């Protein structure tokens, strides 16, 4: 039998070769010099039929028992509930198998959805405009820094030490390419938020383009954003805020406290954790900076009969027009994930989003309090938090993550992964999905186990 994805029969191939006027397919590859040809079959496992393929992948999937455990893991990806309409609608073939909407007349579905997405992100963040998506939260934050450097015509980037370490690593990688100096602000070890004195020091000089803030921060704590904003503004730098979109159901829109650019990762908005991707990054800014914004933007216009329609617009910012002077090299973004996020937000509405945020908040605080009451356990930081917090345990020889795992619960990550001095400190994230039974179960596992 042939290969399912390829329609040609040998008869088809013969007819086509005859039409071209060749007698062997090799003639079509005559332009490939001998010395660069592969003269052997690829060393790959043999083809699998569909049933074999499904069985093989099911076996691999089954070899990830973590996927069946109760998830208190945090650090940028969260086990939120995914309403059934989200994958159902975003999975429709007409959305999934379309390209970037270069031909607007036959892409109004995608274009309208992106326009809706831009509107929702602008609403959530309290800014004027949003783009059609970025790869993820980390690259969105990094591109925000690069944009701020452009807007401010200054070079130095200040990043709070409470920003997700992986986001800071990505920033460092990109900054290294452009030789941008990056200053990291120290953490107040008691509060778990920014050391304001150190921020003040970092802002000295008139060379700071922007300050990158994460709210809620990597430790789950709430930064004093009004105070931070005041200091950043006083120095003429741009304020860039990276945020958990779920938190915006409850927390002030960053645009309202002075953020110039707001970014974040959209995984929490109806996307599976999927071992880290694909998710999407969102990116919003003030109207006056839109022509420096990276990424695709959809705008409204009219067709020749005066009907409303939507197109990709302001493309002169982009690589396919501006080439080496583009605002970014981004081309393909994460449109389908952004569509899922759009459906999620439309499914929840403002009240639903607030409810999710409140459930996270209440459940996280219930659990934190109960854990703090366990002998030997302790909350590491004192600042208020949203849905995530850091714990430590000083019972000798007791490994809380391992004990939890035995009982079917996943907690973490261990902050030692990034900060040696915090080895043994664990992030605990609580989403609206976690039931009281699970919360109490985790506490019980730590209460009784030895």
């Amino acid at each position, binding site marked *: 039998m042939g290969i399912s994805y390829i329609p040609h029969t040998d008869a088809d191939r013969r007819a086509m070769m005859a039409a071209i006027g060749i007698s062997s397919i090799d003639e079509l590859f005559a332009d490939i010099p001998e010395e660069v040809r592969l003269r052997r079959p690829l060393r790959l496992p043999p083809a699998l039929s569909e049933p074999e393929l499904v069985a093989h992948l099911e076996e691999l999937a089954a070899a990830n028992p973590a996927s069946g455990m109760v998830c208190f893991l945090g650090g940028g990806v969260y086990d939120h509930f995914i309403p059934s309409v989200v994958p159902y609608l975003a999975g429709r*073939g*007409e959305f999934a198998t379309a390209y970037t909407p270069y031909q607007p007349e036959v892409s109004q579905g995608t274009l309208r959805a992106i326009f809706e997405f831009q509107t929702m992100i602008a609403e959530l963040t309290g800014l004027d405009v949003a783009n059609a998506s970025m790869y993820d939260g980390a690259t969105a934050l990094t591109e925000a820094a690069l944009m701020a450097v452009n807007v401010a015509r200054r070079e130095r980037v200040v990043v709070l030490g409470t920003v*997700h370490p992986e986001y800071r690593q990505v920033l460092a990688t990109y900054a290294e390419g452009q030789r941008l100096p990056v200053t990291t602000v120290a953490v107040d070890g008691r509060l778990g938020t920014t050391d304001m004195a150190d921020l003040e020091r970092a802002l000295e000089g008139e060379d700071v383009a922007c300050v990158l803030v994460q709210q809620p921060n990597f430790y789950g704590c709430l930064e004093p954003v009004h105070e931070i904003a005041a200091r950043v503004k006083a120095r003429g730098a741009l304020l860039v805020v990276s945020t958990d979109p779920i938190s915006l159901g409850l927390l002030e829109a960053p645009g309202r406290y002075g953020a110039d650019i707001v970014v974040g990762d959209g995984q929490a908005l109806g996307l599976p954790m999927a071992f880290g991707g694909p998710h999407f990054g969102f990116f919003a800014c003030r109207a006056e900076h839109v022509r420096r914004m990276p990424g695709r933007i959809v705008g409204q216009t009219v067709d020749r009969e005066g009907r409303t329609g939507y197109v990709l617009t302001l493309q002169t910012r982009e690589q396919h027009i501006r080439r080496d002077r583009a605002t970014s090299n981004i081309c393909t973004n994460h449109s389908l994930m952004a569509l899922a996020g759009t459906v999620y937000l439309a499914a929840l509405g*403002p009240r639903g989003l607030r409810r999710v945020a409140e459930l996270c908040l209440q459940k996280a605080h219930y659990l934190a309090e109960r854990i703090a009451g366990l002998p030997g356990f302790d909350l590491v930081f004192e600042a208020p938090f949203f849905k995530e917090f850091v714990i430590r345990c000083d019972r000798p020889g007791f490994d809380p993550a391992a004990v939890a795992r035995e009982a079917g619960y996943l907690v973490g990550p261990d902050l030692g992964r990034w900060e040696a001095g915090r080895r043994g400190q664990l992030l605990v994230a609580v989403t609206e999905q976690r039931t009281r039974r699970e919360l109490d179960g985790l506490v019980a596992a730590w209460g009784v186990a030895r």
Partner: protein
Amino acid sequence: MTDTANRSTSGPGGLHTGGSGGHAALPAAAEPGPEPLIFEYSRPGRGGAWLPEPDVPVRPVEDLVPRELLRREPPALPEVAEVDLVRHYTRLSQMNHAVDTGFYPLGSCTMKYNPKVNERVAELPGFSRLHPYVPDELAQGALRLMYDLERALCEIGGMARATLQPAAGAHGELTGILLIRAYHESRGEGHRHKVIVPDSAHGTNPATAAMAGYKVVEVASDERGGVDLAELERVLDEDVAALMLTNPNTLGLFDENIHRIAEMVHEAGGLLYYDGANANAILGISRPGDMGFDVVHFNLHKTFSTPHGGGGPGSGPVGVTEKLVPFLPAPLVERDPETGRYYLDENRPQAIGRMRSFYGNFAILVRAYAYIRALGPEGLRQVSEDAVLNANYVMRQLAEYFRLPYDRVCKHEFVLSASNLRERTGVRALDVAKRLLDFGIHPPTIYFPLIVEEALMIEPTETESKETLDRFVAVMKRIAEEAEREPDLVKEAPHTTPVRRLDEALAARRPVLRWRPEGAA
């Protein structure tokens, strides 16, 4: 700068579906107008009702969060009933052309069939419910898949190791160029500050080089469409860090001098970067590593059949030769030869850093892995053979009606020019593209590459049948004839799409980038 979106009013007779169309009343035929935006279905208090009551003691929010941090005004998200939500996005989906609805010969994009089995396996809870920070021991299946995919991509590209982190082609390019920079720096050659790209290159190539802090130097193409060797000679010097190339190039032509080009660049101390957007032509036939490339990215969302999603997600793994391996970003998946266990190795002291959070677009990797396993070595080679056969079959026939600027065997795609039509009839490549829409066919890429005027870049892919290609040829021929006989029919196309030709200039001049409720500022 932004402006209020027009919102159609609808009195009881003004009929909802026509919403955004701005129709005051339905025309006699009552053809439903374009679907409005979701916001127009919103009514205060509706929807959003799927959440449980709290099952823990509830404390006043203000006791938990400082009052000044609380949101003062709720976001104006839509409030819609579930049935309206489903209808809205179902109808929107029906306004799209997609591979699932018809032929999509969009050059450079490899719009091949996206196998449904890939969706099925990517959605398995064992993959989709996996948090990225789970312990390695509890995610052996996922790690093994990544490990095996990396090996397969290395074998296909002729590379030593690869990173699966990059989220798209352009992201892979940036990763690759940063790898090249790290390599040069490790050898004390940090002064190299130029990257060469051909004038036929995709925009992401120069944009990437610039983003990585490099100066971009263009090199012209020769009359056969390849890199002009004399030009290349001229621009190569000790400041050159790399040449970025795609081969076959954006004209769909294989650069026969690739070996010589590689020698020249390497002699000048530079490295060769392979933009894998066109890899669909060479699977199992020729490997970038064997051509002399040092760094390669693949677009899994092109060559390896993962759906493009209306603009992503993609995945752009980057493979490198031995000498660049130390610089690959952390983590890589390694296998302990003793225990056979897989693990994430974060300990990579020379790594360029991290290109994104976590490990890559894992669910896309699952699909690409499934694709490679479904095809096997012979299947992958067949893919490229048939992709090239299809392109040549169409090219030969269309050369009668359109100008063929480079008349040689093409690879997986080819570029025509509508300049002949334009001269005689005023019909442009854009018009031909728009007219194709009336026949339910997605147009080719137009006006790219920049070195061909009135370019029509056609990539049929291997998943299209002879009948589909025959129909496309017939339609293109017919449009060429219409251009002669009835040029306005073509210039005013499309005629049958949900909206007609859109005013892009207006959109850019007076940007309306978000919806606002009627009457809002």
